[in-house]
């Protein structure tokens, strides 16, 4: 019979030893997990746990053809942890100074000092009272490129590491500055699309709760909670970089020649309301926004109001034709200086040149103030006011980038006796350049007033379209037939009227000049003007609307008429747009048309 391989005593001894070991381990575990738990957890959390915030990449702003107008680029802020520094790395400092473009002596000074601070801090760490005074980060350089940072990491200097940051870049510098806006150094979107479309652009930061090793590397296996980062959406604007460049270039020419207070050019498509270009002078560089004066940052197209002057005559002419109270051939006596209206003899405004009998077509072509006044009187205050409102004056255009003012259009009950004679010529009313532009767009768009469209679509970070913006109708201002007739009358401004000599054969330019005396200290002055031209082409099938508004142009000789200041700019832009947008002529220019243009085409 077997007695087993060990005696009872030995077996008991082994069993007791094993049990004692287990007991020892158990007791130690009780100490670790129960008795010392809080202190140990505090220590472990401090030493190993970390919450890494992953910054969302801000979406890009693109033009209608996908060219980048604003984007985010990552930069590295390089710093050093004084407590981690190793004296053996001193030999790498000169190379690091070269890469960081810092003077060698300066960097050595900072690092030596950091090393001293680090040693002191390590000593302090033993004293709980001084624990909070430890320095773990000394900044060495900001905005270090990724390539340079790669080279720095290859040097393997202990304690030197970087933190990534996104910085906003505007590839076009000044291009569409007032439309795009900027994000300031604190990451706050301040103006323009950056500010008003921030909700689409900013995205959502993500964060990861995990642990790190002694070299501060994340231990991915210990990730306990993770909220994924959501990058911002890309915003596609209706702006076309090339058109924008053209008009900004034209503004530079205007600024060099006339030194205006401000100038605005707007180009849009009449049938969609899409703005292809919107530029103001003065302008500023988005990459150096901190140097730009606040005045230069104003989007004058929507924030400033002007008296529209004769460009406003489209209201009186359009309304009278639309109501059917006149035809283009109806004759008015524009030589009379006063007129009887509601039993009162009203003085009519002055003309720039003497007129006698003019048809409605001639009133528009030659910009007769008295003719426009008589058209308004014929329809009455209420009708005239109602049409002015329909054209969008005195109310917001609902511009998507905000910041706009409504302008001033008083109700007829607040008008004085002369307002009915002055408002039709664009006095006693104030409007933003964009309001004037959209009013002319309504004529070009068959009488339909649209909301100005600056947003084309929103795309997610993967490039999928998540939202598109369709044209929005605001008002039917004129009947389509009336709008077509008015467009032809406005074409006569080029063939016979105030813009004669600026025609481009075959393209039926149409528009209205405007010259308004400025109000200084409550009085109209005769030597300072707002010069404007708002037009479109081709008149029979409008494809593009252009507004040129120049405030306070300084002329070396004569008055700053819209014809002298704004019409040449309009023509120059139109010539470029014909090529760029491939606008085809309506007819082959005849030799007669060429001759009328001095032989030029």
């Amino acid at each position, binding site marked *: *019979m*077997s*007695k*087993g*391989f*060990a005696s*009872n005593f030995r*077996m008991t001894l082994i069993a007791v030893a094993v049990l004692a070991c287990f007991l020892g381990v158990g007791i130690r575990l009780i100490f670790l997990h129960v008795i010392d738990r809080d202190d140990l957890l505090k220590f472990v959390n401090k030493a190993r746990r970390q919450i890494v915030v992953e910054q969302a*990449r801000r979406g890009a702003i693109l033009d209608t053809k996908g*060219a*980048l107008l604003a*984007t*985010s*680029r*990552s930069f590295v802020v390089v710093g050093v942890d004084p407590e981690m520094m190793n004296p053996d790395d001193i030999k790498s400092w000169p190379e690091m100074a070269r890469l960081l473009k810092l003077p060698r002596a300066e960097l050595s000074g900072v690092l030596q000092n950091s090393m001293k601070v680090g040693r002191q801090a390590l000593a302090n760490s033993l004293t709980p009272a001084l624990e909070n005074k430890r320095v773990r980060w000394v900044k060495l350089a900001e905005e270090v490129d*990724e390539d340079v940072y790669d080279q720095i990491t290859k040097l393997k200097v202990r304690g030197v590491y970087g933190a*990534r940051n996104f910085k906003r*870049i505007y*590839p*076009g*510098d000044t*291009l569409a500055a007032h439309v795009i806006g900027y994000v300031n150094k604190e990451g706050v979107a301040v103006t323009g699309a950056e500010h008003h479309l921030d909700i689409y652009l900013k995205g959502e930061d993500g964060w990861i709760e995990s642990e790190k090793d002694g070299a501060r590397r*994340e*231990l*991915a*296996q210990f*990730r306990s909670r993770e909220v994924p980062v959501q990058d911002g959406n890309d915003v596609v604007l209706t702006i076309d*970089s*090339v058109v924008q*460049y053209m008009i900004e270039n034209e503004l530079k020419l205007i600024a060099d020649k006339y030194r205006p207070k401000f100038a605005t050019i707007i180009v849009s498509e009449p049938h969609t309301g899409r703005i292809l270009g919107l530029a103001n002078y003065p302008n500023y560089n988005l990459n150096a926004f901190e140097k730009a004066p606040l005045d230069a940052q104003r989007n004058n197209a929507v924030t400033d109001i002007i008296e529209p002057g004769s460009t406003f005559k489209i209201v009186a002419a359009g309304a009278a034709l639309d109501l059917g109270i006149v035809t283009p051939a109806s004759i008015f006596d524009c030589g009379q200086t006063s007129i009887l209206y509601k039993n009162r003899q009203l003085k009519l405004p002055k003309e720039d040149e003497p007129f006698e009998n003019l048809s409605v077509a001639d009133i528009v072509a030659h910009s007769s103030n008295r003719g426009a006044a008589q058209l308004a009187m014929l329809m009455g205050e209420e009708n005239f006011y109602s049409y002015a409102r329909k054209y969008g004056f005195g109310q917001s255009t609902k511009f998507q980038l905000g910041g706009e003012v409504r302008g001033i259009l008083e109700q007829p009950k607040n008008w004085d006796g002369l307002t009915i004679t002055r408002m039709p010529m664009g006095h006693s009313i104030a409007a933003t350049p964009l309001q004037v532009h959209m009013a002319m767009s309504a004529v070009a768009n068959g009488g339909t007033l649209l909301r100005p469209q600056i947003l084309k679509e929103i795309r997610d970070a993967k490039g999928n379209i998540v939202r598109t913006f369709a044209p929005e109708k605001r008002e039917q201002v004129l009947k389509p037939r009336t709008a077509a007739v008015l467009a032809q009358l406005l074409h006569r401004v080029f063939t016979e009227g105030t813009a004669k000599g600026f025609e*481009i054969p075959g393209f039926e330019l149409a528009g209205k000049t405007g010259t308004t005396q400025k109000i200084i200290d409550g009085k109209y002055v005769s030597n300072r003007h707002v010069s404007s031209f708002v037009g479109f082409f081709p008149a029979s099938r409008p494809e593009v609307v252009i507004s040129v508004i120049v405030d306070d142009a300084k002329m070396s000789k004569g008055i700053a008429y819209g014809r002298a200041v704004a019409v040449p700019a309009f023509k120059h832009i139109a*010539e*470029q747009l*014909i*090529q*760029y947008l491939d606008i*085809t*002529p309506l007819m082959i220019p005849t030799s007669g048309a060429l001759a009328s243009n001095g032989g030029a*085409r």
Partner: protein
Amino acid sequence: MRPPPPNTLVNKIVALTLCLLVFSGTLGLGAVWVRQEIFSTANRSNVLETKLADVERRLDEVDAGVAIALNPASLLRRNETMRLGLEAPKQIQVVRMQGSPETRLALKRNQEIFSLSTTARKSGPTAGNARLVTASFP
């Protein structure tokens, strides 16, 4: 039947305990191995994520560089510095035509080919003419 001697029972208990220890040890080691695999996979995927983010960052950087280079003002500056003399066409330089320009160009090209081959046939089989016609074919 006689009951087994007490030593045999103890031996059985010891053997069972050892088996239990081996089994639980295997389980423990297995758990450690699985955990280690999880750790290394997590770290590998973390490295890949970092690389991916790095590539995306660099792509953004390249995109920004391309956008700066393609900005109309930069292109015009380059046009000047490289003396390319490129200009937008003027209306007088543009000839507008009905129909597809590709068809017109093909028609023109075919006409040239056929007129050349006719000329070649009329002037006799000289080596020079034949070469000229052949060279016209794509």
